[in-house]
């Protein structure tokens, strides 16, 4: 206690039937979390040492258990509002929204993509979040990246998502109003997310993103396009995993999360702008702005709202694009925040 850097957190799929609240042994070796059993609470005197250790707890009171992490919670990257674009620009509205609509961004990354992808996110749009966390499966203090107790790969995506939200809930619940998840190949425009969220209460359980329609009655949000949970939604989500109301039901992260959230009564919101144009996008801009190709017939089957191509595809105040590589990450940051047509009066000028 008091030396979080010596603690390690070890995880596993909870035993069939959920936690039982009794003490359990922890067995298994580092790197094979799937063989470990779940253990909670303040570690014994002397700290955890990374392999097996005992734990005592109260039967039937899983909420008294606490989760301990490898990276001390203070190592987060704090953002700053968009630097004013030039002296002749008035950024007071953007600044006001930065202060009032606090967004914590967590970026799904991995040890192998920290340098090839996450680094470019960190250099570009992540700077506009109020706070940003890079969630990996191994801690990297110099980045900094949180080491979640999960493995890598598609089958671990939902685990990673759950653990990331639990981490955020545990350490940063009161520091933000909205909690955004993005991939390390997602490009986001955080100022536009704040515009979208400005009129909504963070206490109401809500989540927003690119809405898909199959499998879940109210729809679910595309993982790659990024999605955001209100603080109210995050509370419900964390509680659901603590009690076993939601469990790791499938490896398909976005679908499984959508099913859980629907079960909890978290509403799937409409993220389209006041002209009905989408703001979250599951593909890069060139794909949406072009005319559809034959293999695009699946997209309309997934999209909750009618798909529009070319100019109507995308709001002027778009929030995200997916499958964006390193070069395009910087290019989009430049096109969005820097390059502009002098004196141009935009067609779409929504009210605050």
């Amino acid at each position, binding site marked *: 206690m008091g030396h979080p850097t010596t603690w390690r957190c070890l995880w596993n799929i909870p035993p069939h039937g959920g936690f039982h609240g009794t003490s359990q042994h922890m067995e298994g070796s580092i790197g094979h979390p799937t063989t470990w059993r779940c253990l909670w609470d303040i570690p014994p005197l002397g700290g955890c040492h990374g392999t097996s250790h005992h734990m005592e707890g109260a039967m039937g009171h899983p909420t008294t258990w606490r989760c301990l992490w490898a990276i001390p919670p203070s190592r987060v990257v704090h953002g700053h509002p*968009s630097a*004013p*674009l*030039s*002296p*002749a*620009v*008035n*950024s*007071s*509205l*953007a*600044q*006001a*929204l930065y202060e009032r609509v606090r967004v914590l961004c967590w970026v799904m990354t991995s040890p192998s993509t920290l340098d090839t992808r996450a680094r470019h996110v960190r*250099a*570009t749009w992540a700077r*506009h979040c109020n706070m940003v966390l890079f969630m990996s499966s191994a801690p990297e203090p110099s980045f900094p990246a949180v080491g979640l107790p999960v493995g890598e790969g598609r089958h671990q995506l939902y685990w990673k998502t759950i653990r990331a939200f639990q981490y955020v809930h545990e350490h940063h619940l009161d520091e933000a109003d909205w909690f955004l998840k993005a991939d390390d190949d997602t490009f986001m*425009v*955080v*100022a*536009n997310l*704040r*515009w979208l969220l400005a009129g909504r209460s963070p206490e109401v359980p809500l989540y927003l993103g690119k809405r898909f329609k199959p499998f879940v009655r109210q729809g679910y949000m595309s993982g790659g396009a990024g999605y955001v949970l209100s603080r109210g939604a995050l509370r419900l989500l964390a509680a659901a995993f603590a009690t076993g109301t939601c469990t790791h039901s499938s490896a398909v992260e976005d679908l499984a999360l959508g099913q859980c959230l629907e079960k909890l009564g978290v509403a799937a919101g409409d993220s389209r702008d006041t002209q009905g144009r989408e703001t979250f996008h599951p593909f890069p*801009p*060139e794909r949406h*702005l*072009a005319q559809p190709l034959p293999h695009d017939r699946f997209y309309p089957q997934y999209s909750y709202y009618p798909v529009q191509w*070319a*100019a*109507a595809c*995308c709001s*002027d*105040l*778009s929030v995200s694009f997916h499958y964006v590589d*390193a*070069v*395009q990450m*910087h*290019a*989009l*940051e*430049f*096109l*969005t*925040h*820097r*390059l*502009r*047509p*002098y*004196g*141009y*009066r*935009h*067609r*779409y000028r929504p009210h605050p």
Partner: protein
Amino acid sequence: MISESSSFVKGVVLGGAFCMLVTLLGHMKVGHGSKAQRHEHHHIQAPNKEDVLSLSEGERMELSKSMRIYCIILVKPKDLGHWAAVRETWSKHCDKVEFYSSENVKVFDSVALNTNDMWVMMRKAYKITYERYKDEFSWFFLAYPTTFAIIENLKYFLLKKDPSQPFYIGHTVKSGDLEYVDGEGGIVLSIESLRRFSRILEDSDKCPEQGGMIWKLAEDKQLAICLKYTGVFAENAEDSEGKDVFNTKTVSALIKEAMSTHPQQVVDGCCSDMAITFSGLAPNHMHVMMYGVYRLRPYGHTYNDALVFLPPPGSDND
């Protein structure tokens, strides 16, 4: 009486000497300034924010309307995809745009020049343009169909420049003794330069159609040679930080370069916020540029710009 007048004379002489000294000092400063002026002639800059803010509201509106650009796009049938993209995107922001093509193409409206030679095309296009529009436009922008241009930024750049002066502006390249504007980045001529060029076109010694003695010179070089004979010299256009505003590469290519030369400041170091052109674009990327430049932006920032440009009528992608 005499001593008083001698004091007076002394006073006048001293005053005169002091006045001369001050004037001389003043001229020294001005001399230094005009040296800077001469230096500026080859690296031409955008107007300062101060220049612009000193204009009154009425002057700003008048200026916005008075800045009119005539665009010339040189196309060939093989460029059909790019041609379509240019037509559907940035060229809508020219006050007038004309596509000058090597030959007549049924699909698109153009002025057919009946030649495949780029230099001959350029000569003819400029000549026709001068004859038809010399009284209607002061600024002429020529581009290839692989170029994306932001006309509003071009207007801002040209704001305080006098078109009755011989301007020949763009992304310059030095080739031996010759400094020329690279056609890839777009070529800007003032009416005075166009007037001089259309005259020297008739001189088959100085400005022949068959340029170059041994091998053919590129058309943008030929243009520079002809203009040089008329006393018109290429100038490289830069913003207030010295960054090029006419670019012969795509945003991506420039970003890639910035990622290796200054990886800590990629977006800062890449390109000008007031860039006018990027080039080497594929047609679908023109649509991305159109969206990224004219539409996608972060909410909550408003600008105190000296000019106001409205979106063109009958367009939906800007």
